[in-house]
C-alpha cells in the first residue's frame, strides 16, 4: 500500500457502509443465534446515512471524514454497536488528524487507535468472542504484509486480501469461544458453538473492501 489519498478513504468507507447495509439481515440473523438479533439493523441505521449523505461530508482531511462517520454512528446506532463503532471512528479520526495522505504505517496506526477505542469503551479483551477477535488478527496481518516489499507494487492489494482472509478464519475461530460480552454473554455455555456476529461482520466487510481495492488497483 503506497501513499493513499482521500479518495482511497472514500472507497473504503463507501464500500464498508454499503456492505453493512446490504448485509443487515444476515448480520442480524447471526446475532439472533445467541444474541438478540439486532446487530445488523442497528449498524444499518447509521451506515445507510453514510451511504446516502457521504457526498455532503467534510472530506478536507482523513480525520474530518472519520469524525463525521463517528458522529453519524453515535447519533443513529443503538445497542453495543453504537458506542463501540462510534468510539472506534472517533479515535481513528484523532489518530488521522488533518492528514490528507496516508502511508501504510499511518493506516496501521489509525486502525490500532480504533481498536484501543473499542477496548476502552467496551472493556473487552481478545478471546471474549467479540469483533476484536477478527479485527485484531486482521490488523496484525495487514501490518506484517504491508512490511513486505511487494506491497508497494500492488498498492497493498495482496496484503489487504490476506488480512481479510485472516479475519474470516478468525471469525470462524470464535465458534468454540464462550461469549463474555454483550447480550450473548448471558447465554453462558450455550454461546459455545456459534460464531460471533460482530467478528463475522468484520470478515465480510474486509472481504468487500479488499475486492473493491483490487478492482481499483489491479
Amino acid at each position, binding site marked *: 500500500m503506497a501513499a493513499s489519498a482521500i479518495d482511497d478513504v472514500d472507497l473504503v468507507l463507501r464500500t464498508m457502509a454499503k456492505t453493512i447495509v446490504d448485509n443487515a439481515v444476515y448480520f442480524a440473523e447471526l446475532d439472533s443465534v445467541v444474541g438478540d438479533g439486532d446487530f445488523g439493523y442497528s449498524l444499518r441505521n447509521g451506515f445507510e446515512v453514510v451511504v446516502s449523505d457521504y457526498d455532503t461530508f467534510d472530506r478536507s482531511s482523513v480525520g474530518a471524514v472519520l469524525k463525521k462517520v463517528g458522529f453519524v*454512528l453515535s447519533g443513529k446506532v443503538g*445497542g453495543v454497536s453504537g458506542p463501540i463503532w462510534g468510539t472506534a471512528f472517533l479515535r481513528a479520526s484523532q489518530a488521522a488528524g488533518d492528514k490528507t495522505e496516508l502511508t501504510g504505517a499511518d493506516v496501521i496506526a489509525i486502525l490500532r487507535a480504533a481498536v484501543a477505542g473499542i477496548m476502552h469503551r467496551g472493556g473487552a479483551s481478545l478471546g471474549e468472542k467479540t469483533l476484536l477477535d477478527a479485527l485484531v488478527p486482521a490488523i496484525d496481518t495487514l501490518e506484517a504484509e504491508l512490511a513486505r516489499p511487494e506491497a508497494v507494487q500492488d498498492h497493498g492489494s495482496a496484503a489487504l486480501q490476506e488480512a481479510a482472509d485472516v479475519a474470516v478464519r478468525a471469525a470462524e475461530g470464535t465458534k468454540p469461544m464462550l461469549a463474555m460480552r454483550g447480550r450473548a454473554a*448471558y447465554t453462558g455455555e450455550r454461546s459455545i458453538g456459534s460464531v460471533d456476529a460482530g467478528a463475522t461482520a468484520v470478515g465480510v466487510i474486509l472481504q468487500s473492501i479488499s475486492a473493491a481495492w483490487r478492482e481499483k488497483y489491479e
Partner: protein
Amino acid sequence: MKKFVNDPRQFVPEMLEGIYLASDGRLKYEPKYNLIYRADMPQANKVSIIQGSGSGHEPAHTMIVGKGMLDAACPGDVFAGPPVEFVYETTKLLNSPKGVLHLVNNYTGDRLAFEQGREMCEADGIKVETLLVNDDVAVKDSTWTVGRRGVAGNFFVIKAVGAASEKGASLEELVRIGNDVIANVRTLGIALSSCTPPVKGSPLFEIADDEMEVGIGIHGEPGRQRTKLVSATEIVDIFLNAVVPDLPFKSGDEVALMINGLGGTTIGELYLLYGIAHKKLAAQGIKVFRSYVNEYCTSLEMAGASLTLLKVNEEIKGLLNEPAEVSIRVF
C-alpha cells in the same frame, strides 16, 4: 408477522407519536431523539429522571413518563439501547440545577451509551448521576463480567426515585434511595413463547409446544435452562426457589410482590400465579405489603411472566404509596 404495523422501521417513532397524541398536552415528543418527556419539565427545583433502554418493553419505559415516575425517556430501537446522541441531547434538554439522574438497565449497550453520554454532558457542566438496575437472578454475577441484567425490578426503582424527586429530594438522596431499592429487588422470568421484533419479522428463537425457558432475558436471550412446561403451581415454586434465597428474603420480611406479564400472557393467568405466590410466601412468613399484577416490562408479545420481590422498609413503602400520573389508563 402478525402485528399492527406500517413500515417496520417506523414502528418505534409511530408508537411514540401515539403516546404523545394520547397525552393531551401532558407530554412532549422530540422525534429526532425518540424522546418523550413531561411538558412541565425541566423544573429548577426537581431532579430530572431519565431512562433510555431499548423499545419493545412497553409500557416500560416510554409509557410511564409522567409526574411521580420518569421525566423523560429516549429509547432506542426495539431491543437496542439508544444511540449516544439521544442520551446527550435528552440530558441537555432536561438539565436542571438540581441535576439529572440516569436510570440504566445493566446491559452493555445501555451502559456504554449512558457512560459516553454522561461524559459529554459533564464536559458541558451538567451534573449527572447514574443508577444501574440489575435485578435478574437468572444471571449469576460471578460467571460473567457483564453482571446481572436489569428487568422488571426497574419499575420499583423508577417509582421510588420518581416519588422522592417529586417531594424535592436531592440528586444524592435519589442515588441513595435508588440503590436501596436495587439492593433489595430480585426477579426471575419464564417464557412460554418467543417474540418477533418488527424489523426482524420472524421469531427470535424457537421453542417447542411443551417447553418453557426458565430465566429468559427480556430481549429473548436464553435463560438458565429449557425445560418441560409444568403446572402453574410448580412454576411458582421455580420462581420462588430462585428469587427468595437470592437476597435472601426471610420470614418476617415485608415485600412488594409483582407478577409481570411478558406481553402475550393474559392478566387472568398473572392473577392466578399471584394468588399461588401470595399463599406460598405467607406460608414462609413473608408478608405482601402491596401487589402488582400487570404488564410492567414486556418482551413484545412473548407469552410468559416474571416474578419480582422487593423487600420494603418504611421509607420505600411510603414512596410506593405516593400517587403518580402516567400515560396508561386503567379507567
